[in-house]
């Protein structure tokens, strides 16, 4: 908690300075709206804002779940099949470098302006990050422990759940943290291309309507859900790996 106070003070100072700047210079709302104006826009449009946020959250979280589940299954397959790993894994690594967000227009063309194109893009992003990290994580299991399991006649399933998964947990959470923000980015990016609702749509729409205060309010909301998603994964990490709390603090 003590670590947060200086940062919170700085944030408060920035907001106060911003408000003061707008009041003193009389800069147009069309250029930079004051924090009070943004707050007013949030209160005024709260029903719409909540609705658009929920749409984006639904897209991002569905994609996040789907992408991570498929990635974990694929990582296990890669760990146990040398053929699959040799053929497909370099492609996955290459895919990681491809700007996946750039395929959003293709997905929107295929699946229309509905929720599905956003879910799929979010899933793609989460998938590539988690797959690479999970393959590394599953391989990071202690060789001695694996040998011991083998000697004790443990089944592959036991080997996987008792040794490899616990070893992979820190790797998994690293990718989940990245994936949480990436899923929201994906949802918003695909909404820019073509959507009927969602925060990305709202941001695009308010800019077109020159409703600058509502635009900033929508962007602030996107920022808050980005942070909240990240925070949620950090909390889950502490719960799942209490022995690593110290290490978590650092990231």
């Amino acid at each position, binding site marked *: 908690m003590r670590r947060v106070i200086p940062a919170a003070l700085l944030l408060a100072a920035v907001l106060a300075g911003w408000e003061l700047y707008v009041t003193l210079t009389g800069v147009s709302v069309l250029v930079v709206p004051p924090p009070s104006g943004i707050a007013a826009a949030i209160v005024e449009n709260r029903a719409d804002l909540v609705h658009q946020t929920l749409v984006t959250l639904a897209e991002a979280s569905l994609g996040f779940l789907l992408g991570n589940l498929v990635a974990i299954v694929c990582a296990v397959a890669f760990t146990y099949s040398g053929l699959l790993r040799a053929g497909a*894994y370099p492609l996955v690594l290459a895919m990681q470098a491809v700007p996946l967000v750039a395929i959003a227009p293709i997905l929107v063309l295929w699946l229309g302006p509905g929720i599905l194109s956003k879910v799929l893009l979010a899933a793609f992003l989460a998938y590539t990050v988690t797959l690479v990290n999970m393959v590394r994580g599953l391989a990071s299991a202690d060789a001695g422990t694996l040998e011991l399991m083998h000697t004790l006649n443990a089944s592959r399933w036991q080997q996987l759940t008792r040794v490899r998964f616990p070893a992979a947990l820190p790797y998994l959470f690293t990718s989940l943290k990245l994936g949480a923000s990436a899923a929201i980015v994906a949802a918003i990016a695909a909404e820019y291309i073509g959507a009927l609702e969602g925060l990305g749509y709202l941001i695009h729409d308010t800019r077109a309507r020159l409703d600058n205060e509502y635009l900033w309010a929508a962007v602030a909301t996107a920022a808050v859900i980005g942070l909240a998603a990240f925070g949620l994964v950090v909390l889950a990490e502490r719960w799942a790996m209490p022995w690593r709390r110290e290490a978590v603090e650092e990231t």
Partner: protein
Amino acid sequence: MKRITRKLLEGVAGVRAAAAFLLAALLLWQLVTSTGLVKFYVLPAPSTVLEAMARFRGELGEEALATLTVALAGFALGTVAAIAVAMTLTYSRLVRTAVYPLLLALRALPFIAIIPILVVLMGTGYEPRITICAISTFLTTLVNLMRGLRSADGEVEELMHTLNATGMQRLLKVRVYAARPYLLAALRISASSCVIEATVAEWITGDSGLGYLVQISGYTFQIGLMWAAIVVASALTLALVGVITLIEKVAMPWAPQAPGAGAAV
């Protein structure tokens, strides 16, 4: 030179299996599309995409240059700023406790959400696009650099202290040295996210660049060109990441896998 060649050859061997896989996928793709099993607007044949590339090579080159300019300018600005701020934060405890948590929090934000605001403030030219690339590079690189600078071996630091090294010497010979792999990892991640940020910003500014080309070719239903632009954007990213990976391997052959946090976007 020999070392570089060997590194390249090692990479080639690993790539062979993947190339076979890719070739099989391309053949299958060509087969289902040229037989009309899948409609061209759903999935254009690889040959259609190649045709569009050949026909629109002038446009593709021009827009790719615009995207590359934006990405590289943002990348350079962000990296320089990150190095300067990391040095400052390492030496001032007060600034670090106040600013660093905010910077960490900023990194979790969906940057692309602020592009429209930047467009309102700066117009539809290069400025908002370069700014967004610079911001994302800055935050990724800064966080990795801070970790890297702190990763310096404590005993070596003590030794330097015993040897009466100045603060500047300690910084350059111990901390900067330890931070190099972290810096290069951050640069690799930033290189690819810069192309992504630039592309997304081009959707919004609609002025020039590969993102702009993807969008208008989609609107005008030139599906071959749309795919061609996406392929060029991907190739651009791969090339940038490849250059940095090569630098990594040549500069630090002892580090098989560079540490540091990644960023998906």
